[in-house]
């Protein structure tokens, strides 16, 4: 018998990094389910592709870096990146889109910066932005909700569409995107942007069937599902409430003020909160611990900055949705935010007196 030497503390909390990552991925399930039901099963195909790609690229790089592969694969961080990217891209985007995006996210954005914990940018969002900039056409082909589609899509069609861009019965994605009356349909945010640029007012634009409800057909439910998942994460103390609250409230306040000032061109706060990827971004992506701010005050600043950027890009920028850019830009500001929001240490007065 020998005695074991260990450093204190000898007692540990039982929640591990892998569990945290896995819980976040699980909390995406309501959103994924809603997306699969309302927008077709493309998302599931994308998920499968993304996860396989993520595991393969992670294992490859870890092998090249001479690290233990299995231990690090088991931390589920690659899984989470894959899930977030797969649910962010259009469900019927061609298969190589998600493969390129995920591989880029894992290899370039995460591992080349030193692996988990060392990446400056959120891998999923960096991958998303790469795809958006490189393949704008494929990345904006969001099919309308199934209820608005003129052509029925069988579950098997999802696989065909992702791999060949044609459904099994031979319809192209463009055809699928076309409504019964022959108009190409896009996401509500996209439609609104196009209409406004055509000189239509907000009210005129909202006659379009994609604006069913106050946030757009299907999108409201999708966002509500992510909100539910997010609230679960906060309740489980896996994410801090500060970032989502700051994101949502800053977006709400800004769009409320702007909508009151110019009601014809800027949609109201509820539209902004429940359309596009707002909830997904606020609860699942902005809260990525690695690339987010780490101090309590800093998290509020970081969230508010994201809200501001989302508002600005959606309403005045060149892209219909903006959370990916907003989060990447806020990631860049994190070191600065962290530096200036250091909490006061016990027994020290203020930062200025420290000097």
């Amino acid at each position, binding site marked *: *018998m*020998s005695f074991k*030497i*260990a450093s204190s503390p000898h007692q540990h909390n039982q929640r591990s990094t892998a569990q945290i990552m896995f819980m976040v991925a699980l909390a995406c399930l309501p959103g994924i389910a809603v997306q699969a039901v309302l927008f077709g099963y493309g998302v599931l195909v994308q998920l499968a592709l993304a996860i396989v790609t993520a595991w393969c690229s992670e294992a490859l790089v870890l092998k090249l870096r001479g690290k233990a592969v299995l231990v690090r694969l088991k931390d589920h961080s690659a899984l989470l990146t894959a899930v977030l990217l797969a649910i962010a891209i259009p469900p019927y985007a061609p298969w190589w889109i998600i493969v390129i995006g995920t591989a880029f996210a894992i290899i370039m954005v995460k591992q080349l910066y030193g692996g988990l914990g060392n990446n400056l940018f959120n891998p999923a969002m960096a991958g998303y932005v790469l795809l958006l900039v490189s393949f704008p056409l494929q990345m904006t082909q969001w099919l309308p909700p199934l209820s608005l589609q003129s052509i029925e899509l069988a579950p098997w069609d999802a696989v065909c569409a992702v791999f060949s861009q044609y459904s099994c019965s031979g319809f192209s994605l463009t055809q699928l995107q076309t409504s019964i009356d022959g108009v190409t349909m896009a996401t509500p945010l996209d439609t609104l942007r196009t209409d406004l640029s055509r000189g239509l007012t907000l009210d005129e634009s909202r006659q379009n069937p994609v604006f069913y409800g106050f946030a757009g057909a299907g999108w409201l439910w999708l966002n509500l599902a992510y909100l539910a998942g997010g609230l679960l994460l906060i309740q489980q103390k896996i994410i801090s409430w500060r970032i989502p609250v700051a994101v949502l409230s800053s977006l709400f306040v800004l769009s409320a003020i702007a909508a009151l000032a110019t009601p014809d061109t800027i949609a109201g706060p509820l539209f902004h909160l429940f359309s596009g990827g707002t909830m997904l971004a606020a609860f699942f992506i902005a809260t990525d611990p690695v690339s987010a701010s780490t101090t309590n005050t800093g998290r509020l600043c970081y969230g508010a900055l994201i809200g501001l950027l989302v508002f600005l890009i959606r309403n005045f920028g060149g892209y219909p949705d903006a959370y990916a850019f907003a989060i990447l830009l806020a990631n860049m500001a994190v070191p600065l935010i962290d530096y200036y929001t250091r909490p006061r240490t016990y027994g020290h007065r203020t930062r200025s007196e420290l000097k």
Partner: protein
Amino acid sequence: MTLLTALIAIGVLALIFGAVLGFAAVRFKVESDPLVEQIDDILPQTQCGQCGYPGCRPYAEAIANGDDINKCPPGGESTIRKLADLMGVEATPLNEAQTESVKRVAYIREDECIGCTKCIQACPVDAIVGASKLMHTVLIDECTGCDLCVEPCPVDCIDMVPLATTPERWKWDLAAIPVKMVE
């Protein structure tokens, strides 16, 4: 003509900026320690002379005049790194094969000491006490571990012994704790 105007304009601008910069350089001159002082502060002050200079300050002066920064074995890597930062040069490894060793102090085996005072004369920091024909001993707290007393000793009674670790100075090296096997 245009060319001339341009040349004159640029010339005048150059003059103005030069004047401004010159004024700023004089007016806002940053008072700093002379370089030698700064280097001397970084050196470990063992005064061992292993760098080839008699003491740390002469070496500091030599560095300021362009000598290599990697001649100080007692300072080790950290000193070289600091010197490299200060001098704006690459940190080079120690020029000898000397690895950074544990801290040592001189120890005189007192029953063998003949009282020749040679080590006392060699010690740069007066850390050896004793008188002619009487036993000498090392003040451990003052010894810098420079090695200089070992060579002059005619009877080789000086050893460099590693400084004993005390609980206060212990570096939390848990892996080094010997574990007793039972049964």
